[in-house]
């Protein structure tokens, strides 16, 4: 990890921590801020990836995957915005789904790292399992919005800490 990537990781981790605390402190309104931030970051990443595709990746073998990635990110970003008008529980379930998905990606990356004999596979797999487990546990509290939001907030804090620790490893 380069110095710039480390700094970026720490900043993203700190922002995640701030929002996690916001959610925990004010469960009723905090989650909407998180959803808004998520949709904005997805839309921004989507456009950035789209630009990368049209300027560079369209000439690359397998470059179409970059275009698909960009479209999916944009789609998810706009979809997240549209969920703001639905009952809170749907938005929270959606956030949880996205959160669980990042855990699954971590596990898959960890397993791939193990197959490639990269030494960091344990760390990746473990953090992925924790994220998925947290998301699953949260499902049991789906009737209590406050508990749901707090557990989600704890999950965010965990992810933020993992990101910050990774930057210093």
């Amino acid at each position: 990890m380069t110095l710039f990537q480390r700094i970026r990781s720490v900043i993203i981790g700190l922002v995640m921590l701030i929002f996690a605390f916001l959610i925990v402190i004010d469960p009723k309104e905090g989650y909407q801020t998180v959803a808004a931030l998520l949709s904005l970051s997805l839309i921004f990443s989507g456009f950035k990836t789209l630009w990368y595709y049209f300027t560079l990746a369209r000439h690359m073998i397998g470059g179409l995957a970059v275009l698909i990635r960009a479209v999916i990110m944009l789609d998810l970003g706009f979809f997240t915005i549209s969920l703001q008008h639905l009952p809170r529980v749907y938005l929270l379930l959606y956030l949880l789904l996205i959160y669980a998905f990042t855990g699954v990606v971590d596990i898959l990356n960890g397993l791939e790292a193990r197959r490639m004999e990269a030494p960091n596979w344990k760390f990746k797999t473990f953090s992925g399992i924790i994220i998925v487990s947290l998301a699953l546990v949260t499902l049991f509290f789906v009737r209590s919005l406050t508990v749901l939001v707090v557990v989600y907030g704890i999950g965010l804090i965990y992810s933020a800490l993992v990101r910050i620790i990774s930057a210093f490893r």
Partner: protein
Amino acid sequence: MDLVTVKVGKMQIDFHYYATYAAAIIAGYSHEESMEICYSAQFVDVCSRTLLSKLKAPGNAATTQLQLELADARTDIIGLQDITRIWSSFHFLPYDLHAKRDKHCRRTYLDKYRLICNSNGPLVADTVNLAKNNSLQAVGIAMHVLADTWAHKYFAGTPSLVINNVNYYFYEWVVDGDNSLRRKVVTRHNPTAADDIVRGIYTASMSSNDENSIMNLGHGRAGHLPDYSFIRYEYMPAWGDYNNIIKDNPSDYWHAFCQMVYALRYLRGEYDTFELDTYDFDVVSRWEDEIKAILIKRQLDSSEDWKQFGEALSGSSISDFDENTWQKQYMNAAKADKDATFLGKFFKAAIVQKSMVSNRIFESGNSLAGVSVNFKNNGLSFVRNRIGRAR
């Protein structure tokens, strides 16, 4: 990323040191001269900023970057330009700085595409001519650069996913008796594991979707395969419009050796001009069987074979490469005398080579190697100060 291997790619000591020695002897250089040439050729893979800092030598004379330096290298615009200056000047000499693609191709892509390395480009002639009437250290550097244009062809000396990526279509052609078998190349990312040429498992850099990741520098994604003289491999370069390439290293290394002999004879004054795509096949033909036997032998390091061949040629003993050999001489020399030491001459030749290549890239309208000045117009000290300040 801290735990992954950063494999950028360097032709190995067997060719840069021992084979270069043999080429120099065949070209007519004495044993002592050949030792200086091959030492300089190999020192290109050693001369990092870390070493230069230890020697209190100019940082812009760096000809390589250590794995740890790369792992910590910034990939912002300044960092990328620094990486590109080093790797394009010494290890991935661009073939055609004015190469064209379809009319809709954007400049951002073209700049990267034009840095793809290949043999017999105009910059090879510029590199060899730069060493003409220059120190033996300059000759050694030129031989390193020339040899790498054969080993590292089709990869670029700048971090780029869209140019340097290698995907699942990656095979090795293995000779089995009279047959050739195509075997899938298995890559792994364990930095401590040696390549397994029996089972075809090779260490390569990890896949990274980040366009400018260090993982995508040079032939990192293809591991050390380009550095093995025995290997024939088939793959689809990321820039190649889905056309597969069969890289025939034994043939390429044979051409590299014969072109080195030709270039060295030109540098000794046996030819008036250096022509591209010209090889001293006739001169080397006497040893063709021996050389080709070394080139096709499946082994990770053919130093011992090249050493024996070189010693048989000259009748003298070739000492093993030791990067410390000339360091004391440089460090103990007075400031005014440093440029006259072995390493002082090497550093000067390295700065001139880097300046020449960076300047050619810059003058082609490509900013990937940064802003550059022509040392011929401005003087070496100006280049030295200017680049030195930038770092």
